[in-house]
């Protein structure tokens, strides 16, 4: 089965400073690929390159059979490559519902949109209660839910989550991951970035460890659990 | 290390520039041209100081011409009303401008970015309207009414530098060297500030207020200092303007004049060292060129502005720097602080 997302030797970065030095990653059609590693070593840069904000210096990105390397940001979203950015980046002066509706910006079928909205509210009941509240008044966990909900509102083939547990209390992180588990069970494909991989060990199917802009280890979750040494070296005993 | 090397290099360039202009009258004798160079000195002074405030301290102020006008009006009113000699009026004008700037800086303290621009623009607009619409006569001048601040007609025919008596036909040389002296002081002063601790502090509050305050740099103190310092020599420039033209009027508040000087800063390169001088020269050349085009004058100016700013967002100085980088020259470590 062909991969959903295939990256070969990606080189990318900022101005005079390349951050990714030839990264190759594959994401299968279903299931979860976790991207872990210390902060500042290229995980977010990789996601931004994949979503199109950073130009690709060299290498190839193939998404859903198409060459995505030169596609504009909006075209990649259209193709179903959805990036839920770090720190939420919500539309703070809009209501929760308007935020979610923005997620379905590219959709035109009103019935379809209403259905997706209902699905999101079913997954995150708290959002339904707060649907007409301004996004700026939400708690951290609720904001995270809106961010993820926005990603779900698009017709996503692959959802890339940048640190969904960032800044949240453990209990809230549990709630978020419970929802993600449900989605995974429904067959959604995810690429999840986390600095702390402990939660991911159980959620992910495959793990990928990045250090200094390189992929230093790739394997299934089972293999990761077995080769605890490698991970301990890089992440200090998680 | 790199810092002092840059400083020495820039000081050398400054001295060369001043020396060049000092020798200029030997080859350029036409009064009209010398007058234009005097104007260049004055505008360059304003542009350099404005660049210090806007480009280095990051304060988006539109009040620079107010400080210039304050200098001009101080000379006019000082000599007319207080009978002060013009030589005493010059430093007085600079001080008055600095004091005004201090208060304006105080008013702008809590504002950020564009709001400072709008507030300063509003202050200037208010002063302008109040001056023009004043009708009450303060004194009689040559049998006609004169308002306290000169009204719509402004001040004229007051005491000037007195070179006509001294140098007769070559009186303009006297004004020329007075202006050149002020220009020289400004260049040297600005270069020293930019490369010194004050410049560093200014750029710190421009780039990263949080970090700056964690290093003990009080944004408020330095922002007000930037206002006052940039106004001091701007006021002096205005004072010399008044002494040279023997006139000080509300046309100094015109938006087109403000835009003209702003263009010098922007076209030259905001935040650079030599940008304002390059920009002043460029803009004056453009104006000179378009004067010969008669009717198309404004059109040329407008198009020139658009083209410059679209094609060279970092200004002429910035483009020179980029060009040198492209040629592979070793860029100095101070690139971030833009000390070209």
């Amino acid at each position, binding site marked *: 089965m062909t991969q959903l997302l295939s990256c070969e030797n990606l080189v990318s970065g900022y101005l005079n400073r390349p951050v990714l030095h030839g990264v190759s990653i594959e994401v299968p059609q279903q299931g979860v690929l976790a991207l872990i590693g210390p902060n500042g070593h290229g995980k977010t840069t990789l996601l931004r390159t994949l979503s199109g904000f950073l130009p690709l210096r060299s290498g190839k990105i193939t998404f859903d059979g198409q060459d995505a390397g030169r596609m504009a940001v909006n075209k990649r*979203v259209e193709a179903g490559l959805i990036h839920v950015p770090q720190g939420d980046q919500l539309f703070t002066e809009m209501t929760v519902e308007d935020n979610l509706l923005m997620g379905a910006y590219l959709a035109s079928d009103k019935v379809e949109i209403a259905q997706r909205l209902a699905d999101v509210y079913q997954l995150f009941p708290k959002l339904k209660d707060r649907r007409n509240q301004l996004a700026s008044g939400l708690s951290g966990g609720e904001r995270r839910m809106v961010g993820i909900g926005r990603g779900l509102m698009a017709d996503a083939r692959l959802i890339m989550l940048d640190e969904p547990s960032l800044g949240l209390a453990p209990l809230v992180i549990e709630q978020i991951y419970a929802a993600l588990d449900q989605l995974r069970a429904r067959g959604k494909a995810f690429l999840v970035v986390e600095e702390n991989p402990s939660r991911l060990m159980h959620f992910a199917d495959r793990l990928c460890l990045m250090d200094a802009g390189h992929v230093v280890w790739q394997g299934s979750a089972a293999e990761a659990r077995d080769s605890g040494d490698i991970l301990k070296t890089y992440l200090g005993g998680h | 290390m790199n810092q002092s090397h840059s400083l020495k290099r820039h000081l050398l360039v400054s001295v060369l520039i001043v020396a060049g202009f000092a020798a200029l009258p030997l080859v350029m004798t036409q009064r009209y041209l010398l007058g234009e160079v005097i104007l260049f000195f004055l505008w360059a002074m304003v542009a350099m100081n404005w660049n210090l405030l806007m480009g280095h301290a990051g304060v988006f102020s539109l009040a620079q011409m107010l400080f210039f006008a304050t200098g001009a009006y101080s000379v006019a009113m000082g000599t007319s009303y207080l009978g002060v000699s013009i030589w005493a009026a010059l430093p007085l004008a600079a001080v008055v401008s600095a004091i005004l700037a201090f208060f304006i800086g105080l008013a702008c303290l809590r504002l950020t970015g564009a709001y400072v621009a709008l507030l300063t623009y509003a202050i200037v607009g*208010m002063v302008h309207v109040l001056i023009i619409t004043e009708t009450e006569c303060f004194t009689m001048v040559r049998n006609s009414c004169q308002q306290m601040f000169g009204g719509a007609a402004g001040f004229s025919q007051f005491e000037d530098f007195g070179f006509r008596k001294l140098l007769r036909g070559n009186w303009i040389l006297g004004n020329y060297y007075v202006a050149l002296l002020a220009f020289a002081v400004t260049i040297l002063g600005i270069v020293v500030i930019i490369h010194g601790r004050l410049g560093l502090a200014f750029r710190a509050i421009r780039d990263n207020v949080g970090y700056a305050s964690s290093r003990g740099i009080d944004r408020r103190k330095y922002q007000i200092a930037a206002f006052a310092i940039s106004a001091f020599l701007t006021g002096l420039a205005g004072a010399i303007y008044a002494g040279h033209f023997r006139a000080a009027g509300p046309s100094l508040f015109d938006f087109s004049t403000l835009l003209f000087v702003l263009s010098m800063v922007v076209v030259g390169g905001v935040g650079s060292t030599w940008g304002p001088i390059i920009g002043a020269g460029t803009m004056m050349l453009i104006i000179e060129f378009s004067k010969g085009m008669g009717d198309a004058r404004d059109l040329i100016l407008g198009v020139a502005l658009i083209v410059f700013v679209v094609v060279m967002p970092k200004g002429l100085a910035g483009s020179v720097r980029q060009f040198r980088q492209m040629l592979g020259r070793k860029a100095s470590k101070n690139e971030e602080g833009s000390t070209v």
Partner: protein
Amino acid sequence: MDVLIQIFFTGVTLGAMYALASVGLSLIFGTLGMFNMAHGLFMTLGAYVAYSAANAFQLPLVLGFVAAMAAGAVIGVLTHLLIVRFMLGSPDFGMNVMVATAGLGIVLQDIVLKIYGGYPYPQVVRVEGIAQLGGVSITLQALTNVAVALALILGTAWLLMKTRFGRAIRATAMNREAAMLMGVKADTVFLQVMALAGMLAGVAGLMISTQATLSPQMGGDPLLKAFVICVVAGLGNVWGAGVCAFGLALLEAAIGYYFGVRFGFPTMLMLVILLLIWRPQGLFGRERVVRL
């Protein structure tokens, strides 16, 4: 009482025109982050094009307004396509685009001067007649202006709040990158905003010329007032700009009546200065908290 009604009508008439100009300006600032120094000329062009169109084709009043809107929209779009879009994304964008649009303003004003001459003349697209309301006379022109302005502002409000198109504009203004991640094409949004703001400015210009005369520099004063209004409201706050436009216009009318017209603007400026010192973010603006 009559005096108060008169002041109210004057204020509302002025306010309608200011609101059209300010809402467009605020929209441009909020979405593109730029001060459109050519906005006054957008207004001027709207007025002159309506004049020419009416003269050339003997148009009814409605089409005069449409001509003004079209002219404004076109110049707005051209400004974006030929100038602004090349500058977006560069670090000194704010300052550079101010100089560029100021340059554009100079060019446009010169073109108007060359085509129409500098001598002011009256606007042809107008309504004649006077009505009596509550014992006070008010021109039908003023009533028409207010009605059209309200219709356009409400229309813009509906567009921004209730349509997918408007939601994309608001989203782009709030967080450009996040909007792009939803599939929004930022460049398309910018074009739409420039067209919309230009359209509003064109109508504002037409209205202003019906109250005064047509002259190449007619846009300077309204531009300054629109800026002041936007700042008082809080930059980027579109509704605040609309509200403040009416507020400031009423104030100007009142001061003009009681103290003399020449004090209207300086007093307004004085109040703006005091307001900004008291509330640095404007009346409705959000306090910018510096996160350390």
